[in-house]
Each structure stands twice: as C-alpha cells, then as structure tokens.
C-alpha cells in the first residue's frame, strides 16, 4: 500500500478512528497497531509478513538474552559473541535477499575469467519491501541493549517498534530510546499536534506526487536513459533535476510517515532539514536522511574507531563508513562509488578545514554552497546511473555538446528546480506561522483547505502513482 493512494487514505482513516477510540485500553491499542501494521505490510506480499514476524520473534529473544548477559562491567565476553551473532544473523538475512544476486554474479564473472564454472547458482531472489529498514531497527535495538543504553521491550512493544506502519517501508529509522517511552507513557492528554502533521503530509504529498514525478518524467529519466541524445545543457539540467527528484521523493515520503505517526500520537525524529542549503558535506549529512546518518555514526563509524586514533585511521573510518553506506543503498558498484565520493569529500573537507581554518563571509559561503551542491550532484550521477558507462557518458556529455539545441528544457522546469533549492533557504518560522494560523481556523475551514490542497495535488500530479525510489533500498 503506497501512501499517496485511495487505499491508504481509507486504511489510515479507519486506523486513526479505531486507534483513538481504544487508546484508553493500552494493551488493545498496541495489539491493534501491530495488527494494522502487519496488514499494511501484507498488502504487498502476504508471505513476507512471516519474515517480519520471524525477525520480530528472533530479535526480541536475542535482546532479552543480551540484557541478561550485561553486568556492572558491561557485556560479558559471551555476551559480546552473542551480540556479534545477532548482528550477523540480521545482516545475513538482509544479505541473502539483497546481495546474493550481486555476489553470485561477481563470483561467476571472476571464475569465468579463470576458466572455471560459476561457484554459486544465479538465482532470482525477491527483495522483501522494507527489509533494510526493519533490519536497521533490529540491529540498533540489539546494540543499544548490549551497550546498556536501552532495556528490553515487552514482546508486543517490540513488535510495534519493528513494524509500525508509518516508518516500516522507508523510515525514518527510529531508535528504541525514542519509541519505547512513548508506548510506556500513560495517555495524559488527548491532544494531537494536527497542524504540523497536516503540513508534513500535505507538503510531503506535493513533493512526492507533483515535484518528483514531474522532474523524473520530463527530464531526469530521459537524460539518464540516453545521455547521448541530449545536449550538455539538458544533461546538466537532468542532473540537477535528479538531485531535486530524489530529495522530493524521499523526504516527501518520510514527511508523510512522520505526519501520519503524529496524527496517531507518536513522534518520530526529523529526517531531512533543507539539505541543499548545506555549506559542506558534513553539513549535508546532518541534513540529509538524518536518521540514517546517525545510525551509520553510532553503529558503524564509532565501532570502527570513530574519531579515536591517528588522523589516517580516522579518515579510513570516515571513508569506510560512507562506502558501506553506499553499498547499503544497493548491490552495485555505482553505489559504492557514490559512497566513496562522499567519503573522500568528507576527508578532503576535514583536511582543508584543519589546515586553513575557514572564516565567514558571504562570498566564501556562496562558494562553499556551490562546491558542496555540485559534489553532491556528481555523486548523484553515479547513484542514479545504471552502469558506469552511463555515468561516464553523462559526465562526458556535460563538456561536449554545448552547441546543441535543448528542447527538453523549459522555463517551468528551470523554475521548479530553482524554486525547490531556494525554498530550502526560507526560515522555518514561516511554517510555524502557517501552522498557528491553520490551528485557529474552524474545523470546516480546515477541512476545506485540506480538500482544495488534495485536489490541487491530484490535478498537478501525473496519472497513477510514480514508483517510490527508496522502495528498492
């Protein structure tokens, strides 16, 4: 069930009504939300609900045992092995579904070069929707318990933590320490922060259905499908368009998720914070997919050694974290290069900062923004291109076809791209004022405002629902 569909609207209204009606009965409220989440997941492929339930049972049991292996000195030696086993079990499951085909093919190619047959059969394995996200939730749960940062949850709470439908498919990646207290807290006030929730859902839909779909169809998809048929200007605009498309698509979807959770009375952490206003790559990663950034920091970068050790060691950790982050996005070398560009960029940026000490000033700020945005776009070329050949062709085409006509680029398209970047520089207080004004309207006026907005999105959007980029991750 995709968010921007009539199916989901009906599902959500029903869940909203029942969840708030039974909210005083704490146990049944949680049972209902778990059941609704499993129904939501089963809508795609019923058999994979078993995988979700299996992952829930196994990780809850491992979390319970890990807590018993903790002492005043921390986790026992056996506990550390057990934690390693738990993390490996989760990663193996993810690896089987997500990376088997990639590694079997790479092995087959290598062995073919040696004149030997493929060691692993080439099989088609269906990737269950959301497996990356619930695996990340499960790993963070186990590690947080092992570190003593979190206590084991009740089985029902853990089932809800792992499968709660708003974050199930594409995040945000919520930590157990953020989620568990909200389930334990008795309901003190039946109050919903409706205005920000509606704003998140409305602008999420607008970004996802209108902006992302328009730029994908009109320029990004054609340019990346056949760069050789486009002028340099079209290719440049196509790359910028993809940068906006993926931001609008992904941030739009998680905004809807955060808004839906808020309407159900549960708060999620923010996942995007105007990433294209970033003045450095470090700044970009504090604003882009923020819950993945902190996951990578806490469960990969710090265990690798983090900022401790020699400069070379720290830089290695940084680069390795980004490369593995790239590989998480997909089983392809182009994703590895995407991560490597960010990793290398972060290292270079640190080095420059340490050696020069960057001062302020608007001119320098503008230069920093320009360089950051274009490094991010360069990395997106590899992220989007299906092959290295296409990525190189895109980059090559940027310098070799400036004299050609650019009929695919329109003034509206340029305005959408420029507007999508400029809006990220607006102060957040504007949104707050709009929310306060919306809150003061009578219910009928609020309903009419939302209805007109929904119809406007439907008119401006394409026929049907465009595929959601982050499903594949």
């Amino acid at each position, binding site marked *: 069930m995709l968010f921007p569909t009539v199916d989901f609207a009906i599902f959500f209204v029903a869940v909203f009504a029942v969840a708030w009606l039974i909210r005083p009965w704490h146990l049944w409220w949680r049972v209902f939300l778990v059941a609704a989440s499993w129904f939501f997941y089963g809508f795609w492929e019923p058999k994979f609900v078993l995988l979700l339930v299996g992952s829930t049972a196994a990780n809850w049991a491992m979390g319970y045992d890990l807590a018993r292996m903790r002492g005043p000195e921390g986790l026992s030696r056996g506990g550390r092995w057990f934690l390693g086993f738990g993390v490996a079990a989760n990663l193996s499951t993810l690896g089987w579904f997500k990376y088997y085909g990639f590694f079997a093919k790479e092995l087959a190619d290598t062995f073919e070069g040696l004149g030997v047959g493929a060691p692993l059969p080439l099989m088609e394995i269906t990737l269950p929707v959301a497996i990356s996200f619930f695996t990340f939730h499960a790993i963070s749960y186990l590690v947080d318990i092992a570190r003593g940062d979190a206590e084991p949850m009740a089985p029902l709470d853990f089932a809800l933590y792992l499968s709660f439908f708003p974050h199930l498919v594409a995040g945000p990646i919520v930590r157990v320490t953020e989620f568990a207290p909200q389930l334990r807290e008795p309901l003190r006030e039946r109050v919903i922060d409706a205005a920000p929730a509606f704003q998140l859902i409305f602008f999420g839909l607008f970004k996802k259905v209108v902006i992302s779909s328009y730029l994908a169809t009109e320029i990004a998809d054609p340019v990346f499908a056949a760069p*050789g048929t486009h002028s340099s200007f079209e290719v440049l605009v196509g790359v910028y368009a993809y940068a906006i498309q993926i931001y609008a698509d992904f941030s739009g979807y998680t905004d809807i998720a955060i808004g839906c959770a808020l309407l159900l009375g549960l708060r999620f952490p923010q996942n995007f914070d105007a990433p294209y206003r970033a003045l450095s790559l470090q700044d970009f990663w504090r604003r882009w997919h923020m819950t993945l950034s902190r996951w990578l920091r806490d469960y990969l970068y710090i265990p690798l050694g983090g900022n401790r050790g020699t400069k070379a060691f720290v830089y290695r950790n940084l680069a390795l974290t980004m490369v593995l982050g790239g590989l998480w996005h997909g089983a392809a070398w182009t994703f590895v290069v995407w991560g490597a560009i960010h990793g290398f960029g972060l290292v270079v940026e640190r080095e420059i900062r340490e050696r020069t000490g960057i001062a302020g000033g608007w001119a320098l700020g503008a230069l920093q923004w320009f360089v950051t945005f274009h490094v991010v776009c360069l990395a997106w070329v590899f992220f989007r291109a299906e092959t290295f050949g296409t990525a190189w062709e895109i980059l090559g085409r940027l310098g070799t076809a400036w004299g050609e006509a650019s009929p695919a680029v329109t003034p509206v398209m340029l305005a959408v791209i420029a507007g999508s970047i400029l809006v990220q520089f607006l102060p957040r207080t504007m949104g707050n004022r709009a929310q306060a004004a919306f809150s003061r309207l009578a219910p009928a006026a*609020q*309903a009419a405002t939302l209805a007109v907005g929904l119809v406007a999105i439907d008119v401006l959007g394409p026929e049907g629902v465009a595929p959601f980029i982050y499903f594949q991750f």
Partner: protein
Amino acid sequence: MAQEGRTTDGSGNRLGATPGRVFVVIAGALLIAVLLNAPWLEDEAERQPFGKERDFWVAVWKPFAAVSRALYLDRPRAWATDALGHDDGGDVFELPASGGLEPGDPTVSPGGATKTATRSTGKTPTPTATPTPPKQLVRTPDAASPLRVWVGGDSMSKILGEALVRQVSESGVMTPAQESQLSSGLTRPDFFDWPGHLNGLISGDAADVYVVMFGANDAQGIKTPGGEIFQPGDAGWATEYRRRVAGVMDLLKQDGRLVIWVGQPIMRSAEFSERMAELNVIYQEEAAKRYWIRYVDIWPLFVTANGSYDAYIADDDGEVKLMRHPDGVHLVREGGEKAARLIMTAIQEEAGLIPKP
C-alpha cells in the same frame, strides 16, 4: 529527540486539537475532496479492468459524481485541468474498419512470420499468399538525412525503448523518439487511446519508422463497439482484439514507412505467458497479411535452452546476465539492450543498411 511538530502560539502555548476534532477535519476534507473530484474518480474507476472490483468502485463514485455535477462542484477542477492544458479524456478514436488492405496490395510481410516465433508460441500463423513485396520498405538513410525512428507502447516498451533510443542514436544515421505509457495497451482506449495518439503522430510530422509494443496490459476485459464485454479466453475477446490490432496496423500504413511490431517475451507466470503467446499469434498473423509490418519476436531471446523462463539469460556473447525485473514481467537494462539489438537489425535490414539473411 527533536520536538518536530509541536504547534504553539506566539506565547508558546500549545495549539493542539482533540482526536474527535481531527477526525472531523480528516473525514470532512476527504468528503469535500471527493465531491470536488468525483467525476474524475468515477472516470478512473471506469478505466479499471472490467469485473466486480470495477463495478464496486463505479457504484461508489457514481452518486458522488452526480451530486458534484448537480452542485457545480466539479467546475474548479475542470477549469484547472483546462488551464493546465491537461488531456481530459474525451472521445476515443474510431479505428477504420479492419482488413484495410487495398486491392493489389501485397499480403505478406518480408520478415513477418519467423520460424522461431512459430516455435516459441506453439501456434501456427494463418497461411497467406505470397505476392512480391516492395523492394525496400523504407529509404536508406545517411548522416545528412537520418531515418526518424519512433518507439512506444506500454510499460514493456520503456526499458526496451530506452535501449533502442541509445542504439539508434549511436548508429549515426537515425534519430530516436520515445513515448511509453504505463498500464496502457489496445484493450482499454478509455485509459489511453493509442490509436488516437498514433493517428495524431502520423498526421503531423511523422517518423520513418514506428516501433510499437503492446500486450502486457491487454489480457483484461474488452468492450466491443456494440457494448458487449468479453473476458480473455472468450472467443469474442480474440475477435475484438484482433480487429484492433489490424486497425492499428492499417492506420500506420504509408508508402516509405516501416512499422515494427514487437511481440511480448515469455513471462514468469505460466498463465500470463500463455496469454502473451496467444497475443503474439494475433500480432504475427495480422503482420503476415500486411507487407508494411515487420513482426519482431523477442520471445526466443529470453527463454532457457529448454524453452522456460529464467531471469538470468545468456547474452549474444554467451555471458549470462540478469535480463528480467523481479516482477517477472518487465525487462531490465541488459534485457532491453538484447531485444533492441534484434529490432535494430530488423530496421537496418529493411532500410538496406545490411543484407537480409
């Protein structure tokens, strides 16, 4: 944790709403949105495959649509749609009567029915007479006067079309254009009117070569001009579908124009594969009656040695590659490239760029 979303007034007081009030707002918003949008929701429901689910949703939206029209609530959206210049449906293009062959027309395609295709689908095309076809269907291009190649059709034509666009542009003597419409086909012109759209294309600045691919969305209920609805498997279904295929083929006829009709590949689902094989027979038989159509059968490109489906298939150089999408229907890039190479060969043969086998 960020306090994202807590609304306060200027004095920092929380501006929340009770669940009851929020429910009224959500339900009210959806109700108003439905009333503003009901005729379009009804249209959308009517475009779904014929069956109980379609009937249910049409029945749901019909009264809302009636209220919407009666109270002129549908006007704002209609104005917005007009202002944006969006296509709002309208009448479906009427295909010419089938069998549009002119007296004296040759009746066999030079490459229409191949032995491989017959084997792959397991059906035999209708035998046809064999008068002499024109020497060359389309002119031989050069860099100064390239052939204009248009490729389009349903979602199956997207990846294949993208590969063909790449190969066409690399040829140096052809220029490409592509239009693929997801969920479209020939069964439901009320969803997307391909005959009408193609008629518009050839009426204007027409291409030299049209590469079309339909069928993956066509195994659904079909409505005859007389209003009868047939489901796939009914004899009436095949008759009506054949009439449309023949009509589109006749519509595209023009001296000096080549039309490549691409068949569907094998699918993972045996039942779906059988349906596609039946459609391929129709395409193949109708192509064989028309010299200006060259049927290209891509089915054999995507089967294993024993004729079954596999996502991993050997490429032309023998290297095994992932050719199919996880949905078991669509092609991925390598599959598109493989199919496009066969189509390129067909175009090059018909344009006299390479000899015919």
